[in-house]
């Protein structure tokens, strides 16, 4: 049963991109669960993703958070006539939507593109065939460590940037919106529940896991030399960005239907 299924999957994945992505997702999941991915590569990727993206992700989310605070003040004043509760409103929005989405987009363009290019170059120069000849699974070496590393780092970077958003929001509220420090911190957790933070963080974990899978799929499918690699890189960035937004929408819809 199982071998025929895998054969069918391989046949399908030669023809369709989506089937190929699902196939690679299953293979890397199996590689992670059976603990046979390359540990050395995992540590390297953890360094690349974590240290390479730390500055840009935390910086961008903090500044976007500052604008979210001022913008929420504008809108909630129109609705309620007062902006005394906006730290909490803005914090929910940032924790649940803004931080995971922006972190994922930045990680896509910082790391996803280069991972597609790396795998694509290996494919076009037939290094992947050489691995197969040596009996090494390319998934264990290239994809599974990245999936694990990217999901862990996206999760952690979102968490760290939530802390820095708290500080950024404090600056925005006390300088621009005339809050005092006490009212800001008092209102920050007025409506923010633990479930909001957990929802945002689980979302960013899923985003992080899906970025390397999509990028690797486009890398494995690329053909026609250097030009094909460039094309695959652009396609991978676009496809994973659209997928992130789509997945975020589905998650939010599911959650708002459950509530």
């Amino acid at each position: 049963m199982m071998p025929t299924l895998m054969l069918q999957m391989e046949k399908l994945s030669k023809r369709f991109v989506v089937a190929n992505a699902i196939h690679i997702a299953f293979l890397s999941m199996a590689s992670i669960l059976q603990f046979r991915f390359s540990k050395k590569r995992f540590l390297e990727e953890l360094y690349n993703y974590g240290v390479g993206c730390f500055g840009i992700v935390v910086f961008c989310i903090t500044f976007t958070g500052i604008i979210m605070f001022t913008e929420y003040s504008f809108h909630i004043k129109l609705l309620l006539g007062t902006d005394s509760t906006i730290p909490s409103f803005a914090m929910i929005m940032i924790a649940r939507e803004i931080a995971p989405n922006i972190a994922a987009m930045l990680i896509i363009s910082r790391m996803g593109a280069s991972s597609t290019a790396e795998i694509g170059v290996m494919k076009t120069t037939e290094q992947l065939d050489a691995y197969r000849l040596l009996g090494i699974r390319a998934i264990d070496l290239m994809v599974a460590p990245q999936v694990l590393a990217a999901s862990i780092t996206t999760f952690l970077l979102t968490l760290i940037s939530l802390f820095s958003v708290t500080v950024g929001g404090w600056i925005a509220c006390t300088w621009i919106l005339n809050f005092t420090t006490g009212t800001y911190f008092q209102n920050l957790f007025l409506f923010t529940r633990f479930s909001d933070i957990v929802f945002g963080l689980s979302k960013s974990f899923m985003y992080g896991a899906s970025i390397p899978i999509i990028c690797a799929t486009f890398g494995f499918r690329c053909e026609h030399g250097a030009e094909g690699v460039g094309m695959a890189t652009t396609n991978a960035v676009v496809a994973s960005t659209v997928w992130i937004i789509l997945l975020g929408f589905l998650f939010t819809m599911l959650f708002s239907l459950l509530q």
Partner: protein
Amino acid sequence: MKRISNFFVWIGEHMLFLKEVVLVGIRHPFERREFITQLQQIIVRSLPTTMTAGFFVGGLIVLQYYLQVKDYGGESVLGGLSTSGTIREVGPLLIAFMLAGKIGAFTSAELGTMKVTYQMECIRSLGTHPISYLIVPRYLAVVIGSLVLLCFGMFISVFGGLLASWVVNNINPMQFLGTIPRFTSAASVGMAFIKALFFGLLMGQISCANGYWTTGGSVGVGESVKKTAVHSMVSITIADVLLTFFITSAFRWLGWFEA
């Protein structure tokens, strides 16, 4: 200290590049055919992805706003609130991030490949200025193209929000549309246009300059593509903070925002 001075050197290099582009653009005849080809390529290639992204960004923001304002009886004005929130802040930022990954990477990869394969020197030796033939039309096409795409994306995001709130939260679409004029003033839409224009300018400047400065073979092309994505995302975030602050204060001073 070294890093700070490097930052100012970097800004100065960009300014010199801008000056050269403007001077060459004024002095040399404008390549209208090249400009129209580039504009058509940028808009046609990115329109479907921008539409998809805008649609789901609108839906995502509406669902999130609904969860937050329903306790205040805000369902009746959900359309106005979420449209204003999407158009003023979240929509331009997320769509610009996506376009920076797509248009910016594509433009700088193309220009970088031309540079490292000496096609620019070739054009110069044929008696045409490479900046006049390659950079000026691309620069203008990226600016105008991303402005058009951002406006399309924001327009579609209203539609996505309408559909999401209708299907998921069971809000009457006519009521959704009816409350939009109450909250979304012309000044908000103008602010969105100004933001889109500045984001387009940043994307054009950074992608063209990084492509033009590429050195060091195909590895250098990959480097400059990565640099373009990171630089344009960081500068878009900073520009977003500054623009929101200055435009809001300016419009308030002019009396266009009531709050």
